[in-house]
């Protein structure tokens, strides 16, 4: 089998080729290691050699997905492999243990071909906050891939990896998947263990797959999900996850939150969104208007809650137990100088914001109120799911924007997550699938547009079935320039 055919296959197809003996797991790994070595996107922060990729992996185990290499966001602790979370403060850090999510993929026989670039501590929507330089969008090297799982999205879209693992706190899987023209799934909070995943905002963080298609997302999720004794908030998905097979959407109801889809939405993105809802109707689904009256406050609540949690989670980077240290004067100066030198501007901004929101005299006004607004957003979804089976929105209000275009004003950058944050606050699963292409507002070649579908907690199987049927109807076939070359 020719190498370009192997690289063109989805992860699920590749696993089938290996299981049927058409390709050996060895040939497959070599082809992908060669491909990853050609990374011109700054997508990888660390690349494995054969021995490192194969450590603890039996690629011929016959487990689902066995032999298909996987790229992993550099936020997952990996024994013996540098793990930086995109931060200078963890430069050179080699964890003494491995995250449960990665251990599960290894146990399924998937070699790990590299650690992918990301916004520092997963804080960002453009990957420009990485201490190791931005990732380039494979569709246009002058544009961002989205974030924070920008490296994972770019290497899958640019065919530098068959599939990848990412994390999502307010949209960090779905938004880069949309901007790079691939599938990204954020599972229900609690579906997958967070053990060994470097913490950003613990009540929101959840890992998930970034893949070429919906079937691959289902396959990877089926290997990741489950209860883990090391994370007492993990519960798994009852009944597991199977590969989807739905061919229509008969009798299913899809709700559009009118409150949320208004200003700030690019005309090209709106057009693709409308075409996609028409595709839902062709498949027998119905489109209804629903109310999520508090969701437009999602970003405000999120930018209190997530920084508050981050400010406490990041207290551990103090120059004592791991990572870098600056100054040997007195203890407090050592803390302050280490953290001042080790964290980048966005991380400092969020630590400051979170500390302020939790500080004496402001706690109830900010944190307490934001937690109550979160309850109202959760209730809005509960009510909506009494009326419809799914909630649909564009994944991102715009297509991929230019490098440096939104770095001047934090709030402008935060608004990228307008459509993804409410689902994170509610803890519910949501998937972004590529739905078409559109020209950016300022003119230029067409770029991918994502369509987001959200479902009630732990309804991953029905979410994947609907996404699978819709994916086939859309028939998105375009490839980025990185692939055509």
């Amino acid at each position, binding site marked *: 089998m020719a190498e370009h055919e192997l690289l063109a296959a989805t992860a699920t197809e590749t696993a089938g080729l290996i299981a049927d003996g058409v390709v050996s797991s060895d040939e497959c790994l070599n082809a992908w290691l060669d491909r990853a070595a050609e990374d011109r996107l700054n997508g990888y922060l660390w690349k494995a050699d054969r021995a490192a990729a194969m450590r603890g992996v039996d690629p011929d185990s016959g487990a689902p997905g066995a032999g298909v290499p996987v790229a992993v966001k550099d936020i997952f602790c990996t024994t013996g492999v540098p793990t930086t979370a995109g931060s200078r403060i963890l430069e050179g850090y080699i964890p003494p243990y491995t995250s449960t999510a990665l251990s599960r993929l290894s146990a399924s026989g998937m070699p790990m071909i590299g650690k992918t670039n990301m916004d520092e501590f997963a804080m960002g929507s453009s990957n420009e906050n990485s201490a190791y330089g931005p990732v380039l969008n494979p569709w246009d090297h002058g544009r961002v891939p989205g974030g924070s799982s920008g490296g994972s999205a770019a290497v899958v879209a640019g065919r530098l990896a068959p599939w990848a693992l990412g994390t999502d706190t307010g949209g960090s899987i779905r938004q880069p998947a949309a901007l790079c023209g691939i599938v990204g799934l954020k599972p229900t909070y609690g579906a997958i263990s967070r053990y060994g995943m470097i913490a950003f905002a613990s009540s929101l963080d959840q890992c998930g797959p970034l893949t070429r298609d919906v079937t691959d997302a289902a396959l990877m999720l089926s290997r990741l999900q489950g209860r883990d004794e090391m994370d007492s908030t993990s519960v798994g998905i009852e009944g597991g996850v199977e590969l989807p097979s739905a061919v229509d959407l008969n009798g299913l109801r899809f709700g559009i939150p009118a409150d949320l889809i208004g200003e700030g939405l690019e005309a090209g993105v709106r057009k693709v969104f409308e075409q996609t809802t028409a595709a839902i109707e062709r498949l027998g689904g119905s489109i209804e208007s629903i109310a999520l009256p508090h969701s437009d406050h999602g970003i405000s609540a999120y930018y209190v809650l997530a920084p508050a949690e981050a400010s406490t989670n990041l207290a551990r980077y103090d120059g004592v137990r791991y990572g870098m240290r600056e100054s040997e*004067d007195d203890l407090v100066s050592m803390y302050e100088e280490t953290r001042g030198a080790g964290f980048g501007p966005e991380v400092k901004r969020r630590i400051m914001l979170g500390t302020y929101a939790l500080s004496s005299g402001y706690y109830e006004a900010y944190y307490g109120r934001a937690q109550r607004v979160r309850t109202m957003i959760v209730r809005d979804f509960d009510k909506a799911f009494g009326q419809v089976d799914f909630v649909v929105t564009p994944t991102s209000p715009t297509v991929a924007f230019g490098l440096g275009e939104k770095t001047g004003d934090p709030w402008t950058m935060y608004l990228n997550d307008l459509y993804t944050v409410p689902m994170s606050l509610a803890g519910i699963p949501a998937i972004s699938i590529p739905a078409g292409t559109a020209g950016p507002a300022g003119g230029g070649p067409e770029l991918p547009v994502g369509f987001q579908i959200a479902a009630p907690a732990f309804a991953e199987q029905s979410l994947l079935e609907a996404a699978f049927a819709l994916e086939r109807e859309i028939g998105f076939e375009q490839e980025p320039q990185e692939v055509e070359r």
Partner: protein
Amino acid sequence: MIEREQVLHVARLSRLKLSEEEVAALEHELSSILDHVDRLTEIDVEGVEPTSHVVPLENVLRDDLPRPSLDRDRALEGAPDPHDGAFRVPSPQAEA
């Protein structure tokens, strides 16, 4: 509106050393972010319970049994200044 003194106070609480430029930038940026966040005060949250966890879980317990944990030498491997089986830090008191 966040003033310079507040930025310095929060930086102290956060154990962050900031440059003059960073202090000036944060004064402006935090004020601007909080202007947006202050829209939350438009919502009536009277009687609404705060959400701290979205998945209904209670009393996740396991048997309290001794089991192996991370080896001490491995735990010290990543430390900037391991010494005599412990993490060594500078003196908590500034030199006079």
